[in-house]
């Protein structure tokens, strides 16, 4: 059984705006990922490439970009479906994908901040050790 949403026109308009921009952002992320792959190939052909490091960083950034873009695209798809059919289950699914998108980004930020703090601590310890000798 479908549960119907009863969103006001103003909210629907704002959700429709997010649907459009989320779709554009997701598609452009896929395009940028393809271009990054092309850059990798061109770099390899030209021979100015540290193969291991570049491929590894491409795989890591590629997987993160792919996960985020898929979630953004799914948000757009389900939110649009919810607006068209008034189905609250699809709205729930859209919000679930939006949450996953932000969680992936947030966890990524946490990892980067942790690594930065770690590097700073290592640098401070190294400086103290160097000063004491």
């Amino acid at each position, binding site marked *: 059984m479908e549960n119907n949403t009863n969103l006001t026109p103003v909210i629907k308009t704002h959700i429709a705006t997010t649907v459009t921009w989320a779709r*554009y*952002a997701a598609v452009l992320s896929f395009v940028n990922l393809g*271009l990054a792959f092309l850059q990798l190939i061109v770099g390899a052909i030209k021979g100015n490439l540290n193969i291991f490091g570049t491929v590894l960083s491409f795989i890591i950034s590629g997987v993160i970009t792919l996960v985020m873009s898929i979630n953004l695209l799914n948000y757009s798809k389900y939110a649009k479906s919810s607006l068209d059919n008034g189905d609250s289950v699809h709205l729930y699914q859209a919000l679930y994908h939006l949450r996953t998108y932000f969680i992936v980004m947030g966890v990524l930020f946490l990892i980067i901040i942790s690594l930065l703090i770690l590097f700073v601590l290592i640098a401070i310890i190294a400086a103290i050790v160097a000063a004491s000798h």
Partner: protein
Amino acid sequence: MENNESILQVTNIDSSGQFQLVNSGKWAKFIGIVYLVIAALMLLIAILVFANLDLIANSLMNINGMSQEALAFMLGAGKWLFALMMALSCFILFLNGFFLVKFGAATKSYFIAYAEDTLSDSFHHLGRYLMLTTVLSILSTVFSVAAIAYYLIK
């Protein structure tokens, strides 16, 4: 109870949907604050570098060696180019952070009061954030194409 039911009928995002939205808002707020902190740090670094550019340029010249033309560019147009790029970067980071923090704050307000306008506000700010993300993605695409073209021509 009756009041809650009537409110839920207006917005009709059920409790699990509300949980997803509020959780998105919390993460978005965290990301937004990080963006704002990075923007503030970048601004601080830019001001410090800009104020001491003569000293930095001379030090770089002593360490690495630098032609007079490069030094003149660094202290002339390069200085202002650097200032412009840093200001632009700070502004973009600030806007990203601002929209995300506003989105997070609006979802939190919605969860507390279940007011229709706060839900509307949250999607409005989310839309602006996504619009900025799209514009930045377009710029990234243009630079990537230019980089590939440069590699192929070189």
